[in-house]
């Protein structure tokens, strides 16, 4: 039982293993199930999304490899928008409060999730973290996922949009190497473009082509968190999305990321649940 919001969710309860009685021969039965393996995570994620929609706030999941500039982007974004948008941040890392400290230094609330050895955030971690935040009055909640181009893509957190960062020093073929991650993006950011003059191996054209080849149909913005045209385009995207989310919330509608981490998993073609 979740103490704070009265919902039926909370830290997942440990279940005692069921004991099998010995000695009696049972009957074998085959049960057709057809259900998403991560169905429980998806249920908690949907619950998170209801909380976010109830407050009319936009929740964004930031994903990238470690060091692509997620926290720097957030710092610069808060400095630019903090006066007119109420922002909060959930930070995911294996260890340390470093990133949350950096965000708090910008004057906005931040909750650090230390995942220990877990390589990704899941919906329950975010649910627990969000209870440490005041959602009322918030416009924008950033969830900075664990730096990792593999695992975070598989877990719905309750966000409305996925934003994936690809930094110039990483190389322009990252989408081809990590198609599952980059396909999940609603917006792709090519970051650290101020390094382009030094890292001549990186071609933004090749990066865009690599995104196209994995079926990515979203917008791509090239930017440096130090400012400039691309950074302004990112701020404009945020303004549009925050406004769109307010309107959706007023109409009682919601939105899931374009490629849903879960939705995909449950549509086995032509197969129906049953016994």
């Amino acid at each position, binding site marked *: 039982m979740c103490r704070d919001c009265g919902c039926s969710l909370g830290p997942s309860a440990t279940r005692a293993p069921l004991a099998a009685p010995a000695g009696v021969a049972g009957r074998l039965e085959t049960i057709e*199930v057809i259900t998403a*393996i991560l169905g429980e995570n998806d249920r908690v994620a949907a619950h998170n999304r209801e909380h976010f929609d109830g407050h009319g706030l936009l929740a964004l999941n930031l994903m990238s490899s470690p060091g692509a500039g997620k926290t720097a982007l957030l710092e610069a974004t808060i400095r630019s928008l903090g006066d007119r948008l109420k922002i909060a941040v959930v930070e995911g890392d294996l260890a340390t409060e470093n990133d949350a400290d950096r965000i708090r230094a910008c004057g906005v609330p931040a909750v650090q999730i230390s995942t220990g050895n877990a390589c990704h955030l899941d919906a329950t971690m975010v649910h627990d973290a969000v209870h440490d935040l005041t959602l009322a009055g918030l416009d924008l909640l950033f969830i900075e996922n664990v730096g990792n181009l593999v695992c975070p*893509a598989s877990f719905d957190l309750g966000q409305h949009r996925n934003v994936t960062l690809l930094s110039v020093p990483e190389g322009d073929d990252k989408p081809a190497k990590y198609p599952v991650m980059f396909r999940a993006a609603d917006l792709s950011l090519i970051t650290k473009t101020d390094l382009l003059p030094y890292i001549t191996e990186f071609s933004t054209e090749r990066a865009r082509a690599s995104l196209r080849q994995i079926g990515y149909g979203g917008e791509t913005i090239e930017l440096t968190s130090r400012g400039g045209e691309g950074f302004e385009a990112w701020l404009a995207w945020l303004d549009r999305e925050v406004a769109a989310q307010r309107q959706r919330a007023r109409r009682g509608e919601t939105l899931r990321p374009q490629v849903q981490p879960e939705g995909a998993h449950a549509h086995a073609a032509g197969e129906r649940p049953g016994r």
Partner: protein
Amino acid sequence: MHELAVCQALIEQVERVARQNDARRVVSIVITVGPLSGVEPQLLEHAYPLAAAGTIAEHASLVIETVPVRVRCRTCAAETDAASNRLVCGACSDWQVDVIGGEEMILKRVEVETMASAVH
């Protein structure tokens, strides 16, 4: 690797199915996994015994059915296989395609031994 977390979620689903069907043990579990699900079948196999230890599915066999990435072309309507990092139409090479398979991460079937004794 997140395959252990996926296996733990799988075991929770299997335990639920087992309870609903008064099972005394789980004999086998069949799952379907596509290349775009983000999980590696081989890593699932390694993680599975750790997640299943001490549960009703401890001695169950895990059968992983893999399915290919399938795309439907928006231009020529052909349905073809594709590589996960090259989602283009196999017939006309157009990249404007919809993914219609390969994202699955599904618990498909559970075989259990029920409490009810039966004469074979």
